[in-house]
């Protein structure tokens, strides 16, 4: 691990001021940053420890949603009774990820900012446009079993590794930011970005900005939802493909649909046109199959990950079936029904 300057921030203003230095990094739970520092992938000149900031609350918002402080741990969020009752899709997505130890340490803000687990990104001896812009992508013609099938570029085929973010994307969360130029909000879909020709940027945060909260708008997806995650092991592994599905069904027809995919792209993948198309349709197998075909129309494999296209198709269909039946995936017994 490189040597660095360490500052304990005692207020948001203090943190913003300390983060203005070049190569400064905020430290919350540290579960990804400390790991990246051990691999010499992250080499911050200054660590700004934000753990003392008052960002650990969950508050009701005036319009009936919840505002989640950036420092709430993934565990505390997943088991919070308000989340379990009103946003069970989010609770389920969180519990599908990582391990209890990691979820106890990892924070809400940090989850959004975790980096890809692309093997080459983690190995400083190999070219990687995300780690070292302009050096090339080793994955495109390399070991790419876990890599993107949607929205990739010829610069980068990495995927975003989060489960929680797939749930947040489906729920249209809003990211609250504080920076040198004041505060602003980003819609969740506008927070992460596709790699294009700047894969070094995972998201649209500006230099020196800090995530202070993630807001959940009021929503009514408590019956017909699921988070279905397919991975190489039953537990404690990143998704090959995951699907967050949420439906509102009335009189035998879909009134509203949300679908977000994890493990397939540089950001949680949503297709609003397909969600729009689902409106008014009967929730049956042919609808689900057509929906999956539409989402994956532009999908492209790079060799070893070709199987993920068919896997994604089947996972979308299965998730929609679970959601329509009101039978969310059990994250403990893992039997996919």
């Amino acid at each position, binding site marked *: 691990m490189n040597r660095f300057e*360490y500052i304990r921030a005692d207020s948001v203003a203090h943190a913003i001021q300390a983060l203005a230095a070049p190569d400064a990094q905020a430290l919350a739970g540290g579960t990804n940053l400390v790991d990246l520092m051990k691999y010499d992938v992250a080499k911050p000149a200054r660590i700004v420890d934000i753990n003392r900031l008052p960002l650990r609350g969950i508050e009701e918002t005036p319009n009936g949603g919840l505002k989640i402080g950036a420092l709430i741990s993934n565990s505390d969020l997943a088991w919070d009774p308000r989340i379990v009752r009103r946003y069970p899709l989010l609770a389920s997505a969180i519990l599908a990820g990582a391990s209890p*130890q990691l979820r106890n340490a990892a924070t809400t803000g940090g989850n959004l900012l975790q980096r890809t687990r692309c093997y080459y990104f983690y190995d400083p001896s190999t070219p990687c446009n995300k780690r070292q812009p302009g050096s090339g992508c080793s994955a495109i013609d390399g070991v790419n079993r876990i890599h993107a099938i949607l929205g990739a570029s010829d610069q980068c085929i990495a995927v975003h590794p989060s489960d929680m973010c797939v749930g947040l994307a489906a729920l249209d969360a809003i990211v609250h930011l504080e920076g040198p130029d004041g505060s602003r909000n980003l819609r969740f879909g506008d927070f992460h970005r596709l790699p294009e020709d700047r894969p070094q940027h995972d998201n649209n945060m500006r230099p020196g900005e800090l995530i202070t909260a993630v807001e959940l708008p009021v929503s009514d997806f408590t019956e017909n939802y699921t988070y279905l995650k397919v991975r190489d092991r039953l537990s404690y592994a990143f998704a090959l493909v995951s699907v967050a599905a949420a439906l509102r069904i009335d009189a035998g027809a879909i009134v509203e649909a949300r679908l977000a995919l994890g493990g397939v792209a540089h950001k949680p993948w949503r297709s609003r046109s397909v969600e729009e198309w689902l409106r008014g349709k009967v929730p049956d197998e042919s609808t689900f199959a057509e929906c999956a075909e539409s989402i994956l129309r532009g999908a492209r494999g790079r060799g070893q990950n070709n199987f993920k296209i068919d896997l994604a198709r089947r996972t979308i269909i299965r998730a929609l079936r679970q959601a329509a039946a009101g039978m969310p995936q059990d994250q403990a017994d893992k039997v996919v029904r």
Partner: protein
Amino acid sequence: MPESLTPGGVPLNITINGVRRSLSVDPWVTLLDLLREQLELTGTKKGCDQGQCGACTVLVDGKRVNACLILAVSKDGAEITTIEGLARGGELHPLQPAFIERDAFQCGYCTPGQICSAAGLLSEGHARNRAEIREQMSGNICRCGAYTNIADAIEDVRREGSVVREAAE
């Protein structure tokens, strides 16, 4: 010169197994290395050092975490419990005799992490059956493959705990 680069490191007040300590620690030292290398608490094991194996599991303010992924200085004011601190007044934590009774280990290297993790699991109170115990112990790898006996030991203690609670009600 910034505080952190002064010789001797950053001030850190921390309670470990009930003992309050005022330390000065370099900011790049992990909680795991602080325990093992500087405080001679070698019960907490270093396995992968990357948050994947769970051998370094300790309780921070009662919650189980991977000590290898935590910068020690970020836990100023915290209470840490390691495997050395689980027994109280010479009496073992119920998980310790249960692990012996169920032969829940072979080489023993993962055991301190397994037991600390199981202690965290029990106090969290979210595991209602064996499938949930298995899932909620997924952050601890045992390369000898003692999983069945580990789950047995935890189930024993969880059941005893619920009996005790029912008797008290």
